[in-house]
């Protein structure tokens, strides 16, 4: 009985997702969604991947990382090297991007995750900057000028697939025993360790998965926006992602997604007033932290039940 209803729900989800995918694809092919909206759509998907993956580290594991843009850079550069310089297909670029970013996350995570709270934050900030400075000094990838004229390979199916993949990985992970172990680190690291959980291992695990997904986002970004350069991935970019995570709620995947959408839309609307955008960011950060330190969604998730109620008691 239970299994059956689970299966039915699963089928509905697949149907809804497929319908959404086809609908958007239809809009794109018929030109209803012009280039400008396609760009914003891509930004939304990429920001969702970034926010959801950073939320895994900052929200669920409780380790404040300020170097997410660094992993995005690693993924972007790795994928571009594969597709543009070594002539590999996009999928190879994506896989290499994920692997390279995950490796970066591992190398950085193992030593630094011993640090706590704000020391970790500063260390990750510093490491993100080191990644950027290093890329600036590598002539193979054109140093500060970056790589121009990257072939556009990120299309709607890829964006959609990557976004669904990211959300699935994070949601499935969090709702498993591994996820509970990760969350327990946030709740009380000492107690978690004493309950037999190898906290270092799970911190690194979350960090590596988060980095990997950021790498995926970087690859998507690089092959959509034609150009990458080290400056794009400075610590302001990391803060951008942090704002989404904090706004949505540390520890809420749905929150991160909603915030990513909201912030992307806000950025588009405020295109001509960048100073105001940043002041808004600042106020959002401060006000949310003061009045709702857990973010808009807290660590709650938006579930179908809530929607059911809104739509008229359909359960």
């Amino acid at each position, binding site marked *: 009985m239970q299994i059956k209803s689970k299966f039915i729900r699963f089928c509905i989800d697949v149907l809804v997702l497929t319908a959404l995918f086809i609908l958007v694809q239809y809009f794109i092919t018929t030109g209803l969604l012009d280039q400008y909206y396609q760009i914003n759509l891509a930004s939304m998907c990429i920001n969702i991947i970034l926010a959801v993956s950073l939320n895994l580290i900052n929200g669920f594991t409780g380790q*404040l990382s300020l170097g997410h843009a660094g992993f995005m850079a690693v993924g972007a550069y790795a994928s571009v090297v594969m597709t543009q310089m070594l002539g590999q297909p996009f999928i190879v670029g994506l896989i290499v991007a994920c692997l390279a970013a995950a490796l970066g996350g591992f190398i950085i995570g193992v030593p630094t995750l011993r*640090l706590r709270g*704000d020391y970790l934050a500063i260390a990750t900030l510093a490491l993100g900057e080191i990644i950027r400075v290093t890329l600036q000094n590598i002539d193979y990838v054109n140093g500060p000028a970056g790589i121009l004229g990257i072939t556009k390979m990120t299309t709607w199916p890829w964006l959609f697939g990557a976004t669904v993949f990211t959300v699935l990985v994070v949601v499935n992970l969090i709702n498993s025993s591994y996820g509970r172990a990760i969350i327990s680190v946030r709740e009380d690291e000492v107690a978690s360790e004493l309950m037999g959980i190898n906290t270092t291992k799970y911190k690194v695990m979350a960090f590596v998965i988060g980095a990997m997904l950021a790498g995926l986002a970087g690859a998507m970004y690089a092959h959509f926006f034609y150009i990458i350069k080290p400056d794009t991935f400075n610590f302001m970019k990391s803060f951008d992602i942090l704002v989404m995570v904090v706004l949505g709620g*540390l520890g809420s995947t749905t929150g991160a997604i909603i915030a990513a959408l909201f912030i992307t839309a806000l950025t588009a609307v405020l295109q001509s007033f960048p*100073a105001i955008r940043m*002041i808004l960011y*600042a106020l959002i950060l*401060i006000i949310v932290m003061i009045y709702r*330190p857990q973010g808009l969604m807290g660590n709650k998730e938006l579930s179908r039940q809530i929607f059911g109620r809104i739509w008229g008691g359909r359960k």
Partner: protein
Amino acid sequence: MLEFIQQLVNGLSLGAIYALIALGYTMVYGIIKLINFAHGDIMMVGGFVGFFSLTVFKTNIVVAMIAAMLTCAILGILIEKVAYRPLRNSTRIAALITAIGVSFFLEYVTIFLLGPSQRVFPDTAFPIKAYNIAGLSILNKDVFVVVSAVVLMLILQYIIKWTKTGKAMRAVSLDQEAAVLMGISVDKTISITFAIGSALAAAAGVMYGVYYSTVNPLMGIIPGLKAFVAAVLGGIGIIPGAMVGGFVMGLLETMVSGYGNSLYRDAVAFGVLILILLIKPTGLFGRDTGEKV
């Protein structure tokens, strides 16, 4: 050899600037364990106040500095009241994120009001004199920043060690609840701490303006970060540590640029920070404090 001594002079004066900023950083951290990310931006505000005082009100440099210090002291108290006080009992991460928010706020409100471009400090504010001693070039402003850094550190050390306010600060830093029981007003003590810390930042901002001739809305970010590294290097929360950390950073950067490759200067600075954090998380002068289980 002459070149080496010149590099030492360069390193010391650069270090003095870092030390000046780091002093305020470390003091605030020492009392309430908050990395006041906005410290560099308070320094920027101080620089601008000094700039307007010099150019619009045509004051001399001393008045400009006092004006900047007073303004920023008030600004510091205000920031603490509005943004940090409500968070005193929440997590450190929440406080850090708020501090980042305050930092953005100061930067972009300044950009909104004054535009993003840099402003040039008038030459007349601080006439530069160069002393040429046996081929060494030493400027009066070099001497000025080094002496200021040392004097301010001594004053700060005196306040914290010997005055009643200082004792209250130390009590609050050790145990807020106990301090309350001893009749110390925690709110007031923290306000004073922020006022002093921000005034120090303002002083550093004006000196920075004098030293490098310009101020701009984003000028606080990099020196703020470097000063923070300096504070951590010396052991954050420890006044002489910030001083030593600042000089170490200045000399380190100078030597990397002078005898290595200047492009790796920042990477080296950040690398040193990470190394220090990993080997001795509490910095050169820091004490270990483990978590109680």
